[in-house]
């Protein structure tokens, strides 16, 4: 425990120096050690062959790619993703990673190059953010439709106009229907672990994965991260079958013209692959725990069992919400938290199971579908439609464009929720 405390202090120091240096506004530091991080600390004796490092979210993402031995990286710089690509190019220069590194002329070409590389069987990787991801929009569909298991890290940043480089999930939630799996990360540890799991899942169901983290709150903030041994990651990612690729000895086409009947079949098969992925995410998460000591699922329930009121969150706000739940629990409030990790495939059954029978529920979105509300809110609402014992639902739009969401803000949300408020609440 002593070692853990030292690490925590170092982290807080790193944070405060960062705040001083760059004038960044960082959310409550108290909640940095999330539930599974605490669990890790307890389990640290059984975490096999891991080292513990102080990493920013971007460094954790890059290290995840190095551990997965990615073979082709194509990327274009955009704030706040840049240090991912810089760290990777450094890893290649140092000989820690043997990969083809392509500095292309746009995000659009970055994903196009990844598609080409993936189509000949290479493990391809890219990272982007905001305008970059939205520029890729067309190719996100193409990648998924061509069933290429590319993994991309997206640093959630607001989409213009006006210009804004801070955390906002709009860039990734707007890609909801492209056929990519989407994983929202709460901590830097989760960014690293999810990158590894994403390759395993993608290469099995042949759908690409988007690993998402909040700009600056994670991307540029140091946290202690367990770094597994590369040897074990290689073992974890070992493929047992060959996927279809472009091969001169066995010619085939990717993406050829398909008539209405075949197109329908292709699209339906993608949906079925998503459903399969939902089971696989849990299965791979369990296997990951056996090997590395940390468990992951499409949703995580925190203090939910006897809760009357529930916060639903995705991304780094989850850490703050955990603290708020803890404080309210001390006061005797029956409150819990449901963390959603996957926007796609959306864990409908798990969300239903977790929320049915609860009295009230506040879905907090750091994104806004203009004219529709928060995207997680609408997804949760749709999931609960037709169920019995549906809680009173409130959608909370919070933290857009990097606006800080503090503990007292969530306390305010809780008090509003306790008054059985329904509909949309604007926090800020």
């Amino acid at each position, binding site marked *: 425990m002593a070692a853990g405390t030292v690490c925590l202090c170092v982290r807080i120091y790193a944070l405060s120096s960062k705040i001083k240096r760059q004038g960044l506004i960082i959310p409550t530091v108290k909640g940095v050690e999330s539930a599974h991080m605490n669990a890790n600390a307890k389990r640290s004796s059984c975490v096999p062959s891991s080292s513990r490092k102080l990493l920013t979210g971007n460094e954790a993402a890059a290290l995840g790619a190095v551990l997965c031995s990615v073979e082709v990286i194509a990327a274009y710089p955009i704030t706040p993703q840049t240090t991912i690509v810089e760290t990777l190019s450094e890893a290649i220069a140092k000989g820690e990673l043997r990969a083809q590194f392509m500095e292309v*002329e746009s995000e659009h070409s970055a994903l*196009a190059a990844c598609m*080409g590389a993936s189509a000949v069987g290479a493990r391809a990787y890219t990272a982007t953010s905001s305008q970059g991801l939205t520029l890729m929009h067309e190719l996100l569909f193409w990648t998924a439709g061509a069933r290429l298991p590319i993994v991309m890290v997206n640093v959630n940043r607001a989409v213009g106009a006006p210009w804004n480089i801070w955390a906002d999930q709009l860039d990734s939630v707007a890609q909801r229907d492209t056929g990519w799996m989407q994983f929202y990360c709460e901590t830097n540890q989760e960014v690293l672990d999810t990158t590894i799991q994403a390759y395993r899942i993608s290469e099995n169901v042949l759908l690409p994965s988007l690993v998402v983290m909040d700009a600056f709150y994670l991307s540029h903030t140091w946290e202690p991260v367990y770094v597994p041994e590369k040897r074990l990651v290689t073992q974890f990612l070992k493929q047992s079958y060959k996927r279809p690729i472009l091969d001169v000895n066995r*010619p085939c086409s*990717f*993406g*050829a*013209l398909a008539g209405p009947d075949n197109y329908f079949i292709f699209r339906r098969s993608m949906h079925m692959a998503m459903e399969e992925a939902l089971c696989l995410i849990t299965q791979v998460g369990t296997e990951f725990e056996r090997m590395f000591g940390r468990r992951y699922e499409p949703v995580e329930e925190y203090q939910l069992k006897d809760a009357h009121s529930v916060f639903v969150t995705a991304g780094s706000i989850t850490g703050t919400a955990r603290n708020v739940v803890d404080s309210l629990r001390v006061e005797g409030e029956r409150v819990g938290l449901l963390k959603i990790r996957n926007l796609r495939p959306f864990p409908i059954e798990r969300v239903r199971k977790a929320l049915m029978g609860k009295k009230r529920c506040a879905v907090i979105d750091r994104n806004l579908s203009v004219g529709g509300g928060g995207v997680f809110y609408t997804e949760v609402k749709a999931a609960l439609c037709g169920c019995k014992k549906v809680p009173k639902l409130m959608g909370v739009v919070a933290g857009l464009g990097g606006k800080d969401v503090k503990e007292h803000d969530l306390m305010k949300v809780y008090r509003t929720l306790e008054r059985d408020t329904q509909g949309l609440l604007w926090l800020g």
Partner: protein
Amino acid sequence: MARVTQVTIPRQMTELISSGHKACPGCGGILVVRHVLRIIGSKTIITVPASCLTVMEGEYPRSAFKLPLFHTTIETAAAVAAGIRAGLRAKQQNDIHVVAFAGDGGTYDIGLQALSGAAERNEDILYVCYDNEAYMNTGLQRSSSTPYGASTSTTSSDNFKTQQKKDIIQIMLAHNIPYAATICVSYLDDLKMKVKKAASIEGTRFLLALAPCPPGWGYSSDRTIELGRLAVRSRVFPLLEAEHDKIRLTKRPAKIPVSRYLSMQNRFRHLTDQEIARIQENVDDKWRNIFKAE
């Protein structure tokens, strides 16, 4: 009529496109693809952006191509080809050709950024543009490759295109790529020499192929080869090659007036003598510039 060298196509040649593809009768584009692939050989991976060729392959689950093919969006041929090369390098498969076949829309217009990026990085790809001088697959709309005077479905004969055709070869040469050339299926010996040379060079290689289009240009589908010859002989489409910045003409046929080339096509039907004279002047100017640059 001047004499034309006869080229015999050996019967036992390996065709990498089967009959039954969906190109229009007399399509110049499919001939370009057929002959380039015949010379390059079967150890090739190709990528095709949205273009007529997308349709020509045929509908899933049938394919007229006997090669691995990655269909991609209209602006990404060069980037996908570069990615394929990177993937092959990662997999240590270094004896495979990577070829992109794109139309003029996917090259001159929407695909120019990705092509420029790939050329600047000198990606090891062969990029072949089959140039039918308009958006033919979508029904003959103007592109930046459409020549001065041509009518299209968006530039009618009353309001024909008044801008010159973009000089894509000069743009590619400005990237200092190792090899760029123009080819025409009416001159198979020249085409063969250039494709062989392009295949032997490492880095970005660019081939611009004239692809006469019977429905788009308005001529009878049995006259594609003849029209290609007229394009070269009238110097509208000079056959040249450039290794780095050294440019040279590979064919110097006796000059015929452009009117002979133009008069065979409905898309130039509306032109007055004055406009034809202007085209002749431009063609002569361009030829002189190439001649000077040699």
